């Protein structure tokens, strides 16, 4: 057994000097308008809001706050483009434009990743190696479908819907924009997209890319703003389809508003994924999977593995190894290439996470955080785990959306399964075992949209993504992702 004396020491000694990614090549305008009908225009009401760098609390730019009149303009532009050039264009031609977008994203990958990290606080390693390449991959993937829809739905005729209103969250700004825009365009729709108010910059850069790619005006419109702007899009009579990724509460409001209308919708909502470690798992790799599951993107991940279930006989070992591993996680400047955990996206989110840390402790949970130091300015949260919590704890039940893991142990397969499914959510799950048969049984039994085996948080444009229960409606990605943007006729 591990004893206190046999602890490993990771602090002091040799360390890594700062290795910041350069921001010299980045151009962020002091003010951004709305991208409507192929150009940036001023908002009708003349209102702007700030977008700040969560690592420094400094303002990056002023962003237009779109009102009802602006949304009207955007929807009208989208409608005109749909009736006009885009709707009449041959599918193969549409595909060319989408390919062009992906190639330009690749060419400007460095710019996109730097801005993503500046605006959202995520480590540059993640935006560089995950967000931006995946965003380009989504456009590439759906570009290929543009002229092959008849093969996607054999025997059926796939027709476009019209104008898609899309509202995306702040955790993967560019990636979510491409998840939404790429299939919509491939199926022949036009788009009005609203990025989150704390992370609008890469969507506005994407607007530049779309203009550079020569898409006809109005095919993609990007309007910025907060909840009211989103509501105006959802309720707009000129919108034929609503795609939303965000919290379950807002999802519920949207569903109520859409009830009784003719609008098609997909909702990608919250999650509280179970990550289940069996005693026969490859333990050292499972520990990596726990870290990747909950600390990736500061835990701002709807499919984060935020509930850990460890089989009793290896629980002490797994938790001890997890604590060691947490000591080696580098928390700080998102622009540093060695940073593992960046800044919390906003002060509001940080407050929410902190309130859950209090709740967890008051519920009797034992909290452990890594001993890392935090920068003075900016919004930060140390990687955190709770042990001694149970199914009735709020930190186990509710989505925290931060680097906070709730750990429980289990004895038998059935116990793990019942607890894993005992949640209103059902977006994702993870299972770690050396036994293939157990993997197949567990993935059948888990009520979750995505289940990873011996890995976690893996994404690919060819693979559908979406939730059970309160985690959402519909699927995005892959062949299934096309279905959300077409109506099928005989």
């Amino acid at each position, binding site marked *: 057994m591990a*004893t206190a004396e*046999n602890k490993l*020491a*990771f602090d002091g000694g040799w*360390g890594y*000097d700062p*290795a910041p990614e350069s921001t010299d090549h980045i151009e962020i305008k002091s003010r951004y308008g709305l991208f409507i009908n192929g150009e940036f225009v001023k908002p009708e009401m003349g209102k702007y809001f700030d977008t700040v760098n969560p690592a420094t609390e400094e303002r990056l730019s002023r962003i237009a706050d779109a009102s009802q009149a602006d949304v009207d303009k955007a929807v009208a532009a989208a409608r005109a483009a749909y009736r006009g050039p885009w709707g009449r264009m041959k599918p193969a031609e549409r595909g060319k434009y989408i390919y062009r977008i992906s190639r330009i994203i690749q060419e400007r990958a460095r710019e996109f990743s730097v801005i993503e990290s500046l605006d959202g606080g995520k480590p540059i390693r993640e935006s560089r190696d995950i967000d931006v390449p995946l965003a380009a991959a989504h456009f590439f993937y759906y570009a290929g479908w543009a002229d092959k829809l008849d093969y996607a739905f054999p025997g059926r005729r796939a027709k476009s819907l019209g104008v898609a209103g899309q509202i995306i969250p702040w955790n993967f700004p560019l990636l979510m924009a491409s998840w939404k825009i790429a299939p919509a365009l491939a199926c022949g729709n036009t788009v009005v997209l609203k990025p989150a108010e704390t992370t609008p910059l890469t969507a506005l850069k994407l607007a530049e890319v779309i203009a550079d790619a020569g898409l006809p005006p109005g095919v993609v419109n990007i309007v910025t703003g907060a909840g009211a702007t989103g509501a105006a899009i959802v309720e707009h009579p000129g919108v034929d389809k609503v795609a939303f990724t965000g919290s379950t509460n807002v999802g519920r409001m949207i569903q109520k508003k859409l009830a009784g209308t003719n609008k098609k919708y997909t909702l990608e909502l919250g999650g509280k994924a179970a990550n289940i470690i069996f005693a026969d798992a490859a333990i050292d*790799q499972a520990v990596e999977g726990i870290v990747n599951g909950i600390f990736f993107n500061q835990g701002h991940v709807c499919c984060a593995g935020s509930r850990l279930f460890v089989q009793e006989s290896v629980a002490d070992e797994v938790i001890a190894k997890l604590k060691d591993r947490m000591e080696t996680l580098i928390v700080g400047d998102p622009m540093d290439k060695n940073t593992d955990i960046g800044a919390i996206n906003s002060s509001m989110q940080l407050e929410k996470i902190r309130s859950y840390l209090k709740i967890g402790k008051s519920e009797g949970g034992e909290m452990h955080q890594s001993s890392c130091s935090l920068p003075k300015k900016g919004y930060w949260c140390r990687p955190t785990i709770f042990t001694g919590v149970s199914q009735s704890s709020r930190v186990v039940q509710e989505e925290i959306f931060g680097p906070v893991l709730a750990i429980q142990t289990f004895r038998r397969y059935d116990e793990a399964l019942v607890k894993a499914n005992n949640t209103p959510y059902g977006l994702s799950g993870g299972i770690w075992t*050396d036994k293939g048969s157990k993997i197949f049984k567990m993935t059948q039994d888990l009520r979750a949209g995505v289940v990873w085996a011996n890995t976690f948080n893996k994404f690919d444009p060819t693979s559908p993504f979406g939730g059970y229960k309160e985690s959402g409606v519909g699927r995005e990605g892959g062949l299934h992702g096309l279905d959300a943007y077409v109506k099928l006729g005989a």
Partner: protein
Amino acid sequence: MALSAVKKSVRLPDLSNVPSVDEVGVDERVARFQSRSIKKSSKVEALKLILSMIDLTTLEGQDTPGKVRQLCQKAIHLHDAMPGLPHVAAVCVYPTMVSVARKALAGHDINIASVATAFPSGMSTLQVKLDDTRMAVKAGATEIDMVISRGRFLAGDYRYVFDEIVAVKEACGDAHLKVILETGELGTLDQVRRASVLAMHAGADFIKTSTGKIQPAATMQVTLTMLQAIRDFYRDTGKMIGMKPAGGISTSKLAIHYLVMLHETLGNAWMTPEWFRFGASSLANDVLMQLMKQSTGVYQSADYFSKD
């Protein structure tokens, strides 16, 4: 020594309890070490540390006393044009060259490592291997790099391999024992982990990846698996075991990745030549070139660095 005389305190562990290793997961972790960006003073510090951890090696049939003497000279004087450099940790030679190295290194704090036990194949009897070991120690080797009987290990005869290591350890006397697993012949990381556990329980002071005569030699995947075995052994017993990747590490960049891996797996206590070595012949010159580049800002021609 008869095998039955194995000390009671040393017992063959139950290898069925050794945790399994997922190779895909190991690849991912290794990729993360490789994405660390080591710059400026942390790079210089790392390069100097690497120099001090090198077992400068020559293990060829055509080795001559002259070549070994040259190697020893290099071990002492890595690059006198650059003051303040450490010396390497050890010189590693065949048993017949130990006495030559001993004379050449007299008065210097550099270890003499000798391969033994019918290196590199290990295809001989225990008696021959023990004689080989004793001869090297008698000639002045302070460290013995033995090979395990891979054939027996792969056949599942763990008891034989275990007893053999115990016996060689006994024959080493005061010399440190490095146990070469020859991971390139073990096939899977599961086997590497199992062999590591076996060797540590049998009394290895160091575990070492490879002879350098079989491809693949050291890889980061194999080394990570062995470091994790060392970490768990330390947690369970409180005993520190050293690690030596050998073969195929010839650039500074790769060696720095190994240091990052060591740093994030075992922590500070292992970041010394006492607990970590690189078995390498051409690594030293690449590190020296990088160090010169760090101080002068330009790369010098390879001709400015002695090749021995």
